[in-house]
């Protein structure tokens, strides 16, 4: 659960930043100003949310396994591998 918190918070922050950017756009259109760029705090919030989501994604999806097959075989004993149950 602690792994997903970062992802959820990042996604919520991103959605919030997107909504504020859309609202800012509507405001600029209504007051008939020229749209230069988004306000700085929206840009900063977007980038920080992106960073948080990236870290959350790598923690959530980035589970790797060792590729050498001997790593898998280290813990097996001969009794496990050499077991051949008889017919009856």
């Amino acid at each position: 659960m602690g792994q997903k918190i970062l992802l959820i918070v990042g996604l919520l922050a991103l959605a919030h930043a997107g909504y504020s950017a859309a609202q800012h756009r509507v405001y600029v259109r209504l007051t008939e100003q020229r749209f230069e760029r988004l306000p700085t705090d929206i840009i900063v919030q977007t980038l920080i949310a992106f960073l948080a989501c990236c870290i959350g994604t790598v923690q959530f999806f980035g589970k790797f396994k060792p590729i050498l097959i001997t790593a898998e075989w280290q813990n097996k004993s001969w009794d496990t591998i050499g077991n051949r149950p008889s017919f009856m």
Partner: protein
Amino acid sequence: MSTSSEMQIRRSATTLRSTNPTRSPPTLSSATSHRRVEPVLYSEMAVRLNENSLEQCRTSVSALSGCVAGILGLTSYKGFLFYGFSMFFLSSLIYWYIRNEHRTFFTSLNHVFFNGFFNGLLTYVLFWTFLYGMVHVY
């Protein structure tokens, strides 16, 4: 197909020689292409799982960076530059997480950095145009 995979295993066996001191050293005969090396066994399921995890990371991060580019209102070349930057950022994040043991997870670091760099490009463009339309146009 099987011979090429065999050659790949042998090639990687020679590069792994320096890290694994328990294997016997290669003997060079007069013919340059003959080297007695021990084949290294890779678990196919583990290789596939690692590539799958990497691909999942790449797809989700390219979708996320598409959303960010759409919200920020990036256009034309800046958008593609941002895609390149976000892929590089993801690669460095993954490298930072598996920094000490990357040899146990991948045969070479090319898998993390270079292979599949453009896999998420279409996902990126999809989310980028969608979010740009949502935020800036409507």
